[in-house]
């Protein structure tokens, strides 16, 4: 009797050194895989895929290897009449891809490539009476979208376009017994949602509304014997939680509550020495999503070969400094 702890075991021959060059090669080649099945069926999130690839390249100081002009034209052709931006051509606009697009253009210091006023109008129209945000005109409500809205507006310097107080009240109404946050009021706490809500509260200057000790405890309990982090109790570790959990801890000033050495070892073990890139856990298939969050996680842990990353926006600090955006962090 007694529950087995769900976890992975890191093999002795797992990678233990950071092979940045291989990751840069992996990402640089990823975009040219237009006849690849996986690549094509993930078209519904292409804009986010580009954001993941470009951001990790910039963190590795390899952004020039990507095709700025082609990407900028692509983004322009994804802005719809309503102002919102879609994941790819022919797809419908959504807050998720509107944020990704603005993040990409911020890396390139070229947000003017878009009709910024229309983007702001699109976001404003998605705020509901209770302060929440729908993802698009079809009405799905989720705290992820509250984050997308304020992050996009903050990057554009237009946070005042929405009712910030009401938006804050809605996010706080999603706070649970354990100090964490879920998708909607009453939803179970989840590291991804917690990242969105702490990021949201940082951007709106409301971090003091959190119970940082309580949430910090829940977050540091995500660390498993293998050193990896899971997203909520009794789930397997996953390298992307090295971001969602770690960034949240950094925002609330409790990143030292994690065993950094063990986490670093786990992240490094998720590398694929053959193909480059990171997988969700050691031995699995790699993808750009986990590659970004593995590298970003290492950056938060102080990896010198990688540029400092901003924990709220998951973008290089130097980009945000240039924009003049410095969201608050608890100490």
């Amino acid at each position, binding site marked *: *009797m*007694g*529950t087995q*702890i769900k976890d992975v075991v890191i093999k002795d021959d797992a990678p233990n050194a950071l092979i940045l060059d291989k990751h840069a090669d992996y990402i640089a080649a990823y975009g040219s895989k237009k*006849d*690849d*099945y996986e690549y*094509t*069926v*993930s*078209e*519904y*999130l292409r804009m986010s895929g580009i954001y993941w690839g470009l951001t990790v390249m910039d963190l590795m100081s390899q952004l020039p290897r990507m095709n700025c002009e082609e990407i900028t034209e692509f983004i322009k052709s994804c802005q719809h009449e309503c102002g919102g931006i*879609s994941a790819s051509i*022919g*797809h*419908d606009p*959504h807050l998720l891809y509107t944020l990704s697009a603005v993040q990409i253009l911020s890396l390139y210091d070229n947000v003017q490539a878009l009709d910024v006023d229309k983007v702001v109008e699109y976001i404003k129209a998605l705020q509901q009476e*209770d302060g929440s945000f729908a993802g*698009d005109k*079809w*009405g*799905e409500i*989720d705290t992820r979208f509250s984050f997308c809205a304020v992050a996009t507006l903050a990057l554009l310097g237009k946070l005042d376009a929405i009712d910030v107080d009401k938006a804050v009240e809605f996010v706080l*109404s999603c*706070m*649970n*017994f*354990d100090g964490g946050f*879920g*998708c*909607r*009021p*009453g*939803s*179970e*706490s*989840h590291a991804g949602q917690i990242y969105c809500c702490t990021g949201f509260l940082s951007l709106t200057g409301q971090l003091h509304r959190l119970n940082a000790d309580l949430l910090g405890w*829940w977050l540091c*309990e995500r660390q498993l014997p293998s050193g990896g982090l899971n997203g*909520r*109790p*009794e*789930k397997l570790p*996953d390298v992307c939680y090295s971001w969602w959990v770690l960034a949240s801890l950094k925002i609330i000033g409790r990143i030292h509550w994690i065993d950094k050495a063990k986490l670093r070892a786990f992240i490094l073990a998720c590398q*694929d020495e053959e193909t480059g890139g990171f*997988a*969700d*856990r050691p*031995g*699995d*298939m*790699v*993808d750009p*999503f*986990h590659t970004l969050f593995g590298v970003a996680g290492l950056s938060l842990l102080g990896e010198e070969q990688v540029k400092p990353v901003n924990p709220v926006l998951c973008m290089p600090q130097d980009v945000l400094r240039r924009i003049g955006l410095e969201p608050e962090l608890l100490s």
Partner: protein
Amino acid sequence: MHGRLKIKSTAQQEEEKRKEREKKLKLYVTARDVCFSQRKEGVLDEEALQLTQQLLSSNPDFSTLWNYRREILMHLETVREEDDVQKIYESELSFVERCLRQNPKSYGSWHHRGWVSARLPRPDWVRELSLCDRCLSLDERNFHCWDYRRVVVRMSGVAVDQELRFTDRLIGSNFSNYSSWHYRSTLLPLLHLESPEPLSPTPQLAKTSPRTNSHRVCEEQLLKEYELVQNAFFTDPNDQSAWFYYRWLLGRAEREEMISCVYVSREEERVAVCFSKPVH
């Protein structure tokens, strides 16, 4: 993207896999292109529904296609009789259920189901609750399903203690029950509300947002809850959910009305008394 093991295989196996994927890719691209061009031309009929079905069953995160389906359904609402519309939406629910069986964690599928249920001329909330029961019996931690359950319960006015008994059953089956304890934490304060907020006469879940985690719980219910959670971690000390819940429970007691502190100042000839809660 998650949980996909990298398997090494021979050159021949690789070649076979490559051919298969090339075939799959061609089918996908053709179907997608037809859907997009039909939508552009304003096609809003059952045939278009069929086309998107193919793609959505294996790609339920392709949200633009759910959007297209909704456009078609909304159009059919305007040109068909109510009985027909009911049938169309019922078969839509069966389709979504098939999608959910294949991929129970797609935001797109769950959102679409909620959208359909809200538009049905005659919704069957009992059927929806039973779907949630079945889904949760397969994966008690599926938060999409829990969220949908909360909608169903709210729309159909299920009583708080019926849902509490549901969590009792799940917690009783002994493992992976963080989601149930979490649900309890939102239900308890509703049942024994101590706040001055106006309540409907029967404690039902017909509210918009349960911002009730800050509310106190009455002593009788609290002691029952202590027993419940202590049983849990005495049975299995590694059951971490119980410990998180216990910590929360310890802060739930009603505050006794008492004096927190007294300040006496001879010089100012004053006594100040601070109470633990507002005195009526």
